[in-house]
């Protein structure tokens, strides 16, 4: 992690500049303002955890909105959720859980200083992450294809089979929740017609915001893991220094945890 690009005259952060602190003799990974490698590692880990707290609170706002509206419109929620692709959602959950395992094993490999195994495991993690995003992207495109009037995204691209009924679950002006299914939900309390201005749209808005924000985090996670792979290939990590792998792993697990909640909340609703 040592920066060599700072151009501060005498305050260069490089390796030769801190001989005057009287703590020479440590590894080159130790930044100048830390006393011991242990201290640096604890700072990095705690820092990542504090950051993860902020991430959880960030998603907390969305979960809060979800709770408020699900409590208000339980029937609509149940009905709207049936139009999500639950098998793909479940598949994505498996993909993410496996990727969490590979990350945990990668951290383990880094601690043991097994470079090839570390690179392999990080590679598998990235493949799984991309697979997750691919499946997610397919789910999204399915919804957009329905708006365009086609059955599947492939049909949309090839001008294939059109969709039987009008349905558009992408929030916006074109939003149409299929009326045939909507009648059951109009209970005594709220006369809701499944059209544009209805809580159905609220459900899908929350779905797109929550999974979209999650996907953004996935992209960040992927770039972190990509960077770790690069660093690993360059031989940065040794059995005594693997903190970046560990805190990068923490971030990946957080993405997993958020999905663990998103999955039942959006796909498994009755």
């Amino acid at each position: 992690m040592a920066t060599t690009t700072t151009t501060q005259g005498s305050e260069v952060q490089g390796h030769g500049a801190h001989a005057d602190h009287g703590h020479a003799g440590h590894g080159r990974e130790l930044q100048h303002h830390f006393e011991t490698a242990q201290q640096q590692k604890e700072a990095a880990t705690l820092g990542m955890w504090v950051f993860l707290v902020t991430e959880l609170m960030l998603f907390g706002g969305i979960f809060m909105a979800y709770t408020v509206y699900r409590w208000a419109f339980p029937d609509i929620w149940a009905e709207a959720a049936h139009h999500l692709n639950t098998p793909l959602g479940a598949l994505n959950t498996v993909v993410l859980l496996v990727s969490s395992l590979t990350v945990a094993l990668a951290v383990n490999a880094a601690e043991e200083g097994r470079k090839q195994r570390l690179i392999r495991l990080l590679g598998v993690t990235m493949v799984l992450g991309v697979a997750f995003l691919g499946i997610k992207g397919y789910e999204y495109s399915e919804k957009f294809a329905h708006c365009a009037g086609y059955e599947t995204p492939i049909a949309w691209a090839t001008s294939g089979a059109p969709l039987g009924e009008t349905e558009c679950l992408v929030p916006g002006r074109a939003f149409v929740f299929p009326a045939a299914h909507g009648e059951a939900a109009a209970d005594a309390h709220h006369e809701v017609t499944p059209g544009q201005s209805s809580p159905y749209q609220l459900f899908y808005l929350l779905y797109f915001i929550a999974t979209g924000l999650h996907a953004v985090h996935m992209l960040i996670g992927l770039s972190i893991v990509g960077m770790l792979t690069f660093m690993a290939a360059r031989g940065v990590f040794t059995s005594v220094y693997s903190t970046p792998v560990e805190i990068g792993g923490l971030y990946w697990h957080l993405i997993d945890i958020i999905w663990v909640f998103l999955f039942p909340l959006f796909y498994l609703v009755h």
Partner: protein
Amino acid sequence: MATTALPSRGYLEDDTPTVWAWIKSWLFTVDHKRIAILYLLAINFYFLLGGLAASVVRIELITPQGDLLSSDLYNRAFTLHGIIMVFFFLIPGIPAVLGNFLIPLMVGARDMAFPRLNLFSWYLYMIGGLFALSAAVFGGVDTGWTFYTPFSSTYSNSNVILTIAGAFVMGFSSIATGVNFIVTTHTMRAPGLTWFRLPLFVWSSYATSLIIVLATPVVGITLLLVAIERIWGVGIFDPALGGDPLLFQHLFWFYSHPAVYIMILPGFGVISELISTFSRKRIFGYEFIAFSSMAIAIIGFLVWGHHMFVSGQSVYSGLVFSFITMLVAIPSAIKVFNWTATLYKGSISYRTPMLYALGFIGLFVIGGLTGIFLGVVAIDIHVTDTYFVVAHFHYVMVGGTIMAYLGGIHFWWPKMTGRMYNEVWGGISALIIFVGFNMTFFPQFVLGYMGMPRRYHVYPQEFQVLHVLSSAGSTVLAIGFIIPLIYLTLSLWKGKLAGDNPWDATGLEWTVSSPPPAHNFDEIPVVTTEAYAYPPEAAERDAAAWRPGSPL
């Protein structure tokens, strides 16, 4: 204490060959002290900008009619004032400037735990500030700093998105600062510097960081949701879809009420330092002050609903929020009592920082007590959205935070720059600010109680006397803010060399040279005593040795 030979180069010194290299040495610095200076410049710029907007508002309010501004422009003026002052001055102010500069020095570390994150937070602050500025340049925003939906999401025709982007990015800047403070305090303390030997400024900054970390992301996502609602045309706060605008208020105040403690808690820390130093006594009830900061941080999360008494939340929640609001008074009062007890039998010297500190105590007590009025549902319903509220929070924010900020800047100015400022002008401007402040805001209590609503640019004839008084006071206040700007700047060249410890204060930051060396400590110090270890007889000895004109 005389200046000893500098063990190593001060952080301000450079041997850069070209101007460009010099600029780069500042813009790419990872030194917490230089970042603090960068913040100081940026934050003061925004303070002046916010002050300018406030002046426009006050000038408009001299007459009962709207002569200077249309109602729409007036909305934009007070919104600009609110947003700049809240997001770009009060929230980052003390933590980013004094906290950044002092916390590593106070805990005996060479830098923050994450120096590059620290620099990144400054850039985020600047980007956020540019968004807010561009929003102002392209016509401003008229939602008030609270961005209440559905006005902000649907009806407003102003630059809401740009402003929200500014506040959002700024939020991540303060998160970065908060993470840094927390980790630095936990992992970077010098040997022997146990928690109960930490200066109280570190305690209060820690409590502040806790709030920042837990609350800021929530407002981030909330503002993001408003932006989505504005861009996309459908939103989760939209009543047409079955959404609830009150949910926005809940989420917004979940941050923005604790945010007022983000603003005032670091001020408490500064005042604790000042009171102890200029009374030459150990602070009274150290542990109580330390824990009261933590208590405020925690209780501060439970009271946000008192901003929503009249907005349609349940009356039962209103009741509960009202009760919990009363609880905040306890730790706040503990602090005030302890500061007062510290003064007792102290050898008080009325140097400029102390004048600010004493001013702080008086103004904060008024601000805090009127806060209790407002926490009572019945009174709040009477004075909601009147100038009473405006006066209350200005007493806390300006009378509290800005007084502490200026006091802290004066107190640590010799440490930051190595130079003393002009003490005479310092005293004069502190008094001008105190007088100008009270003249500006005390009439507003009366106005509000009589029923003058906030955010209106026209008002009935009978309020004019008080409004003119308030506007006149704001002129005095503005003069009071400009004088320090002048003499502090001049002191950089003309000021006396300060020496390592001009105030004869305790604390690790006073053991290093002024300005501190680039890496703070050549040898990490070992701490063996508690904070504010003034010898018991220091006050009496000082009092006996005092002669007219002597420094302390």
